[in-house]
């Protein structure tokens, strides 16, 4: 299922088109870093006219360039393709910046570190049943933080749509291996009934995609540990954007900020986490 291509294949394409070094701007979501082989694996967006979106291992000339990378980072780089080589240069990790109103200092909250155990919590889903994190142990969890009356299509709607794309892509593993969570940051308004209607938009199966709400202090506590900050402002809620992945052992595998990654890149990361068996 994983859309992987070897650098060697890439070179074949390059060889057909030109012998001179070609440079392509690429944005990739880092899945894995391998300093020993001076390589990182990334889910890359398509390069129009050159290659489709795909997961690929990418060498660098200087292993030091990998120091700034970590799994889940969104990185811009130049892919240099020569006659007999291909490598990345000018690696720049992208810091998510939104020019929209967004809660300040979200990144200054006491965030859970990648690899840290995620504290247990219990919230209520769209069917009115309690969902406890500990009960989902052994499954990979993907969670975003939204509210149903969010007016901006590129914020909550996009994050929910990303999860809907995961639901489709991983249909055969959903519920068994993978569970999706959408935590509402507007618990006063987003009752289980409201969430059930919202879930219907995405044709979410309540057994494998839980839309969660609960008492505000509890919701806040859950959100804050992942850097999600929110408050009412100008008749709406203002909030930061996060999508997190928890591995089978209940540890935080990724915390994506913003909305700049694609559903495919998120899916590639999920697939990598699903593949971690031990």
């Amino acid at each position, binding site marked *: 299922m994983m859309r992987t291509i070897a650098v060697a294949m890439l070179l074949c394409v390059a060889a057909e088109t030109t012998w001179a070094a070609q440079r392509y701007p690429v944005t990739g979501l880092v899945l894995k870093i391998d300093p020993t082989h001076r390589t990182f694996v990334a889910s890359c967006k398509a390069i129009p006219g050159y290659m489709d979106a795909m997961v690929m291992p990418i060498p660098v000339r200087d292993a030091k360039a990998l120091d700034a990378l970590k799994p889940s980072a969104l990185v811009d780089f130049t892919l240099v393709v020569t006659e007999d080589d291909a490598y990345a240069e000018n690696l*720049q990790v992208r*810091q*998510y*910046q*939104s*020019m929209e*109103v967004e*809660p*300040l*200092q979200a*990144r*200054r909250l006491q965030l859970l570190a990648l690899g840290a155990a995620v504290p247990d919590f219990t919230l209520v889903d769209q069917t009115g049943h309690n969902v406890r994190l500990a009960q989902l142990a052994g499954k990979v969890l993907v969670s975003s933080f939204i509210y149903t*009356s969010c*007016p901006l299509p590129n914020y909550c709607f996009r994050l929910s749509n990303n999860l809907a794309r995961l639901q489709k892509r991983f249909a055969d593993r959903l519920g068994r291996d993978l569970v999706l969570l959408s935590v509402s940051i507007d618990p006063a308004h987003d009752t289980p009934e409201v969430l059930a209607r919202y879930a219907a938009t995405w044709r979410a199966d309540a057994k494998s995609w839980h839309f969660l709400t609960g008492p505000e202090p509890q919701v806040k506590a859950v959100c804050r540990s992942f850097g999600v900050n929110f*408050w*009412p*402002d*100008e*008749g709406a809620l*203002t909030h930061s954007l996060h999508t997190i992945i928890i591995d089978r052992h209940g540890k935080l595998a990724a915390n994506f900020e913003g909305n700049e990654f694609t559903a495919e890149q998120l899916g590639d990361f999920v697939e990598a986490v699903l593949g971690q068996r031990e």
Partner: protein
Amino acid sequence: MHVARGQLHAYKGEMTRAIAQYEIAYHIASADDARVLPSLEEALGILNLHAAEMENDVYRNPGDKCIFPISPAMRYKETAHAEKAVQHFLKILAGQPDNTEAKWLLNIAEMTMGAYPSGVPPRYLLPPSLFVSTESIGRFTDAAPAAGLNLFAMASGVVVDDFDNDGLLDVMTSSYDTCGPMRYFHNNGDGTFADRSAEAGLSGQLGGLNLIQADYNNDGCLDVLVLRGAWESLGQRKSLLRNNCDGTFTDVTKESGLAVPATNTQAAVWADINNDGLLDLFVVNETGPSQLFLNKGNGTFQDISHSAGIDRTAFSKGVTAADYDGDGYVDFYVNNMGANNFLYHNNHDGTFSEVAEQAGVPGVGRGFSTWFFDFDNDGWPDLFVTSYYPSIDESIRTYQLLPHNAGTLKLYKNLGDGTFRDVTRETGLDKVFMPMGGNFGDLDNDGYPDIYMGTGNPSYSALLPNVMLHNKEGASFVDVTASSGTGELHKGHGVAMADFDNDGDLDILTSIGGAVPGDSHAFRLFENPGNGNDWIVLRLVGVKANRSAIGARIKVTVKNEGRAARAVYSTVGGQGSFGGSPLRQHIGLGKSAQIQQIEIRWPGNPVPQVFSNAGKNQFIEIKEFATEYTKLDYRPYRLGGSSRRSEP
């Protein structure tokens, strides 16, 4: 479809047509989709309020009609749209009684009809007591129309300085409107200005949200750099405009080496990083790395951004320069949006180290304009850092004295050991104002720099007063917006403080206007009513140092009657990053002052230049190494000319 059409009409300022489209959308939504009604209700309220302003000529001939709080005497003649706006805001509040933005706009709409506070339902009233100034430094009046400064534009940058060396302060502006030309107003010396944009060769220079001035080629005439591309997705070319010393300017961007790459910038600063007497240029960008250009002394610049270690990328909105640690080399501070700020310490070898975290000046992650100034006159440049959080709710919480969710302004006091202490709260600056342009200057000549900030955001709903803050002897800042009459409700961008009429006090020129043609507005020239305090103005001329004297530090030791001697500090070129005050330094001295000593520390020169016989309330020129200063015969005049009535 109707909303999209309505937005296009609103963009152009065709409010009646915009309202008609939104009303159709509202009608359709009433039947089909009630969820969008609150947002349409809000839009209709705002559009009607904007229409009310336009039909009462508030944008072109504002007078006191948009000075907050709006006096009942200024109520609109045409009130139909304002009444409709009130109805829409009331409907929003019926469903959302805690919606602060709707409350605020309701109160404003009632003010425009002279019905505030009595006409506002008590549960929605923001009482007048919230906005009263507890003190006053006098009421300023707008002298722009009388002076012939007929600038009507979208958001703009301003520079006030003497471009033709006749001792009179001229005005140059550039506009966010990519089709809007630069304007150049020559000071006639009689309280009026003449538009010489075309004669100066500037009419073809389009766009540019900000501009900065300096004599980069040391020929004695001030040159200008126009900064473009701010808030845009594609980079735009900067323009370096060389002053030909004959009233004209030539675009020398390409030959100077500044043309490529095109970037998105609205902030840059001139500073001599290696004390070679040549002004270098540091440009910060929104989407690409910052750029440091070394002045080669032959009209060209060399890009040393990378080797200097100063080419970090952030969404940078402000930059300021000062030798914050007193080691004789200028340092830089960058105010970023969405990232921590940068304090670049000059390593004296053409490289810089980023030390914001260690120095304790991280900012709040939502920065706009910024500046170094010595707010407490201890001889060390402190840092003022704006936080631009575009929310009416958060701004109104400032007046309601409620705690903030968003980050506040920041004031970092320089401790003199390379670090700073956050004194925001103790100086009363823990406030949210939505500031964009801004500047500082001693408006009441008490020896302590005050603050004026232009506020707002692109939305038509962002009707918030500009803000004046009086510095109380370096201990705290007090809001004197209402008493000063400078609380212009529309969007304030470039701000310059300058003594336009040579009467010994600083006036304020500010661009007012938003990001779309329908939000264009007349500039304001707020004339200072004066005060009983003394002052002195110093024009510095570098010889070994750069001719503009940028970076020269002035210390005036002054004795006020009945008080111990004290020092007042000022640095040439020290100003807000969005608004160009003159390079000549206006220094307030307080009441019954006696100047004991003037000391100049020139960049690159460890030996101070000292004068001990200067009189007060005069303009003087000090040339580097000279043993005598020159008195400048600048005569006061009345803005608007002698025919202007005493009160407009």
